[in-house]
Each structure stands twice: as structure tokens, then as C-alpha cells.
């Protein structure tokens, strides 16, 4: 690891200048820190794509997400059924969501072309999104605001989040495999199961401020 070059010195009489000067004085005589070995594993999971989907499924379910599998033709009916089962009468539709995903649904569609206000989203029962990728060994789905995912508020305020993961195309094994695929300039939300708390006697309770229901749909036979 090579640290960046020092910048030109700014006004030393500012707080900034004084803090940086104190840092420099503090480490002046310190030994050079040894290089991180980075010999940890790139993945703890099996390499077979089918196994990765199974692992993601199991880990999502372990943290109380409800996991479904369907192929492309079955997706609109599954989404329609999930919305109906939860009694969702309205659904937020992020920009770029494939039209046919909601083709069978009865719920009122609320698009974000004219941005939905926070209050309007609070009166919206559900949201359907895609994702950027999913991490099998931690049971994590990552949203990056790309097409079909919408602004962060859309997947946060409605109480039911139906999230479609393209399997195997969007599934990676591990955190080290996920990071290089993500763009830090985009707003990233990593989701591992529904909202939860362990603040009362360290007893895990699902459902606080984020969506209390997370229905993850593995869309089989799909690439990125």
C-alpha cells in the first residue's frame, strides 16, 4: 500500500492545519506499518452457480426474508400473488422497472417519474424493485439506484419490499467479490433481511423502521 503524496501545506493557524500538524508530529518517529498480507479468502462458498443460489436462499431465509423462485414467465403472476397476499392496494414503481413484472398485479401503480413525496410513499403499501447484485454467503441484496431500483426512499418507506434477484447472473459468493462490481459514487444500500433490532434484551425482533416484510424473488435462468 502506498499512501498518497502529501498535499501542499495550508494555513497552519486553522484547526485543519493544527490537527494535521499534530498528526505528523505524532507519527514522525513511528515505525513503518507492515504491509497488509491480504491472504484472507476471496470466498467461503462453493463455486457452482446452482449452489450459490441455494446458499443465498438459505441465508436470506435465516434472517427472516421470505424467498421465492420462479422463471421469467412465472414472475408477473408471482408478484401479483405476493401483493395480493399482503393486501397491498398500491405499489411504488421505480424508473426502469420492466413493465411486464407488474403485468398481472391489481394494485394501483405509482410511478416515480414525477417524484413521489415522502408522505405519498408513506401512504403506499408496497414497492417492487430489482437489485444491483446479491451476496450468497451473507444473505445480502445490494441496491445501487440503477434501473428498476429507484431512489432510496422508494425501497425504504413502503412496508412491503418485493425484490427480484436475477439468478445466477446477479449472485456473487462473497463480500470481496461484490465490492469491485459496485460503484461507490452511487448510493448503495445493502439489505440482509427485513429491518430488525436486538436492542431489547438482545432478543432479535424483525420490523422496526425499514420495510417489515422482505419478499426476495430469485428469477431463475436470468443473467445480469
Amino acid at each position, binding site marked *: *500500500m502506498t*499512501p*498518497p503524496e*502529501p*498535499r501542499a501545506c495550508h494555513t497552519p493557524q486553522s*484547526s485543519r492545519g*493544527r*490537527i*494535521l500538524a*499534530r*498528526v505528523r*508530529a*505524532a*507519527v514522525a518517529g*513511528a515505525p513503518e*506499518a507492515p*504491509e*497488509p*498480507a491480504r*491472504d*484472507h479468502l476471496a470466498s*467461503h462458498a462453493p463455486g457452482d452457480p446452482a449452489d450459490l443460489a441455494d446458499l443465498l436462499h438459505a*441465508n436470506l431465509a435465516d*434472517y427472516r426474508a421470505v424467498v421465492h423462485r420462479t422463471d421469467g414467465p412465472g414472475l408477473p403472476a408471482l408478484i401479483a400473488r405476493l401483493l395480493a397476499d399482503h393486501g397491498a392496494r398500491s405499489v411504488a414503481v421505480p424508473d426502469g422497472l420492466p413493465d411486464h413484472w407488474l403485468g398481472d398485479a391489481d394494485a394501483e401503480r405509482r410511478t416515480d417519474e414525477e417524484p413521489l413525496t*415522502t*408522505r405519498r410513499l408513506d401512504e403506499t403499501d408496497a414497492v417492487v424493485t430489482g437489485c444491483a447484485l446479491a*451476496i450468497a*454467503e*451473507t*444473505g*445480502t441484496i445490494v441496491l445501487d439506484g440503477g434501473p428498476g431500483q429507484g*431512489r*432510496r*426512499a422508494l425501497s*425504504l418507506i413502503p412496508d412491503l419490499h418485493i425484490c427480484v434477484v436475477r439468478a445466477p447472473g446477479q449472485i456473487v459468493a462473497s*463480500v470481496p467479490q461484490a*465490492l469491485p462490481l459496485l460503484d*461507490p*459514487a*452511487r*448510493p*448503495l*444500500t*445493502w439489505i*440482509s*433481511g427485513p*429491518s430488525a*433490532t*436486538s*436492542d*431489547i*434484551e*438482545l*432478543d432479535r*425482533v424483525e*420490523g*422496526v*423502521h*425499514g*420495510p417489515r416484510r422482505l419478499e426476495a424473488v430469485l428469477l431463475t435462468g436470468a443473467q445480469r
Partner: protein
Amino acid sequence: MRRSTTPAHGAAPVHLGMPSFPRAAAEAVHDRTLRANLRHATHTIREKRAGAVAELDDWDRLREAGKRIKDHTLRHLDRYLEQLEEAVTGAGGAVHWAEDAAEANRIVTALVKQTGEREVVKVKSMATQEIGLNEALRAEGIAAYETDLAELIVQLGDDRPSHILVPAIHRNRGEIRDIFADRMGRWGRPAPEGLGDDPRELAEAARLHLREKFLRARVAVSGANFMVAETGTLVVVESEGNGRMCLTLPETLISVVGIEKTVPTWRDLEVFLQTLPRSSTAERMNPYTSMWTGTAAARARDGDGPRTFHLVLLDNGRTGVLADDVGRQALRCIRCSACLNVCPVYERAGGHAYGSVYPGPIGAILSPQLRGIGSDIDASLPYASSLCGACFEVCPVAIDIPEVLVHLRERVADRGGAGRRLEKAAVKAAGWLLDHPGALAAVERTASRTRALLPNRPPGAGAWTAERELPELPPEPFRDWWRKNRT
């Protein structure tokens, strides 16, 4: 009501009238409810953590990588802070530098006032607790609402946090029910009629109470778990979704972050995002992690996230810690709280006895270094340990807490006072004896043979022995017994 005060030099607050650790702990260990609450909670999480860690074959390597990444960052912290500042500014954020608590509070207060708002929502943050931000804002007529469930319990109960991760760990469900039923109405939406003590019901009451605050909030204050120098990205790790609410919905976001939270590269997160959740909540991954870079999202996508972002970089004693060859390793801490959960002293004394927002073993080495050893509580904290080493074993960045404790004991002893001078002389003598095994054996034998003659408190060391009993001397030294019985 408990109050804290900010000392004149503007460092972290010491709780007013806070007794030294032994006195505070002596009171706490007689509180049976507290002990039962703590024992139940720490034992539960301890076992879960061990299971979550055991799932990863390369845990030791991840731990070593985390340690080295942090050490490297600290060694070149000046350059990484400049790089971070450049990246955050380039992404549309504003960076402020605060030398101490008072300056950080002034900066945040002024930024909130600029928005014209009189209230802010807060994501749980150790840094803002450390500087006493809520009290500083209140003094300027600004209400700060804590939105983490445990912080809400602490705030409504007019209480102090007692654990880094689970600040209300000292409260059981019955106590929490009473606080909600009694106090929620004074801060906003009251608790539902007939509220029970089921954790689900309590979480639902918190959801309803805070919902209106999230939806109308225009300013949020957060901390951050990591800041990536290379990209200017901030990372907040959480469970409930209150973090997402605060980081996403308001127009203005102000993040107060200790300078040591910097990591050099985006890739470095691959280590800490594996070790932090397993160490803290014993999960493979916490429910929600948010990452943002300046105001890039608001500019690229209409209305996604705050349009104004301020980062306040906080020193408040950290550069002093950095200057200490032994003590600086405390700055590697990622605030997971695994060391609290395994500590036999924390389990019995509870978090409040540590007199700081940083309780437990990490607090015992962090508070005296950040605040200095001028007060009774800070001078006693390095002794709040049996040096059993369990904290070091579980630390995901391998902070040798016992080593730093012993180092700080020497500093306290150096400070003077009759008992401390004697203690220092004793430590020195012990060092010499341990280096000279022949002399040690002779001293041990003499002590054993004359044990009936020795007092149980040595004369002239009142300050030391007032809090301690001398151990009983065995009839013969261990090494003699070993030679006779085992060789």
C-alpha cells in the same frame, strides 16, 4: 437527572461527580436487576458471536488484515485525511475540522441554524455522544431526537448509555415498557394505550413514535463506521432502518466522525464488512448498510438523498493517543463491542461505572487516553480489569487491551502520590526480580517462611491498599512445590 459537563479545554465530557471506577462498580454489583440484565444479555451475544466467527475459516487472517490496514492508515493519517477531504469536496460535500468537542459542537450548531430548523433527527453515533452534542444543541434551542431504539430508550428515560452497541442493555423489557408508557407523550406521539412488555410491541411503539419525526425531518446528524479516503465514501452500518431514514430523507446531512475512522481504499471494506457484523451483533451481515459519497446521488438522480452534506472531522484527543507508541493501537477500534460482551468486569459492574460513553475494556483504555488521567474516574479506569485477556482474544482488529492497560497503569503511577510512588517502585522491583530468577526464588522462599509475620496490608501504602487486600501467601513457593511434586 444526571448531567454531564464539558471541561474548559473542550475535551469529552466527564459525568459530573462521577466516582472512581471501584466506587461506582461497588454500587453497581449490588444492583441485582442490573446484574441479571447484563448477565443474560452478554452471555447470549457471546455464544452467538463465537458461532458467527467460527463460520469463517480465515478469521485470523481477516483479523490480521484489519489490524494492518488500520496501522498503515494511522501511520500516514495526515495524507489519508487530505485525500479524504479532497474526495468528499469533489463529490459536493463540505469538510470541517474540529480540534475538540467545543469546536465540533459550535460547527454543528451553526450548520443547523443556517438551515433555519429547530430540530434534527439523529442516527446513533458514539462521536456525537462523546462530544455531548445533544446537550450543546439543546442549549441553543435545537431539539435532537435519537432514533435508534436503544438510544430512544436512554433519551426518554433521561439515562446514560451503558453499552456501545446496545446502549440500554441495562434495562429489561418491563422497565422499557414503563419508560415508553410514561415518557413518549412528552416528546411526540404517545405510546399506544395498554402497551405490554413484548419486545415486538415495544418495537412497534417506537416505529409509530418516530415515524412522524422521520417524515418531517429536514436535518439529520450521523456518525460513520468508515470513511474511504480514496473515494470519499462514508459507511453506516445498522439494523433498524432508522439510519436509512436519517441518511436518505432530510435535505441536509451532517456527519461527525473521528479522524481514525478513515480507511485508505474501497477494497479495504471487504475486511471490515466481514469482521464488524460478526463481532458486534453476531450476524453474517447486519440488516442495513448505507454508503454515500458527498451529494453525488442527489445531483445524479433528482431528489435521491440530502442535497447538502457536511462532514465534521473530529480530533478531540485522538492525535494525543496517536502520539503514544503503545496506546495508539486503541485507535484501530471499530466499535464492535465484542470486548464488552466477554469481559467479566463489565458483566458485573455494568457500563455506567466506567463514567464515559466508551465503557468496558475498550473504554478503560480509550477514555483515559482521550481525556487524560486528571480525574479520579480516568485514573482508576486502567485498573478496571483483571487482565484476563478475553478482550484481546475477541478483538477483530487485535488491540492488545491488557498491554495498553498495564502501560496506562504506569502512567497513572508516574503521576505521583504516596501510594502511586510505592506502586511504581514495586512494579520496577518486580521487573528486576522477574529478570533475575535466582533472586526471585530466594525472595519467594523468604516470604513463604515468614508469612505469619507479614501484615495483610503493607505500611505506608494507604492509597493503594484502601481498595485492595493482599493475597494470602502460600506455605511454599509454586516453583518449589512443582519441583517436589512434578519433576
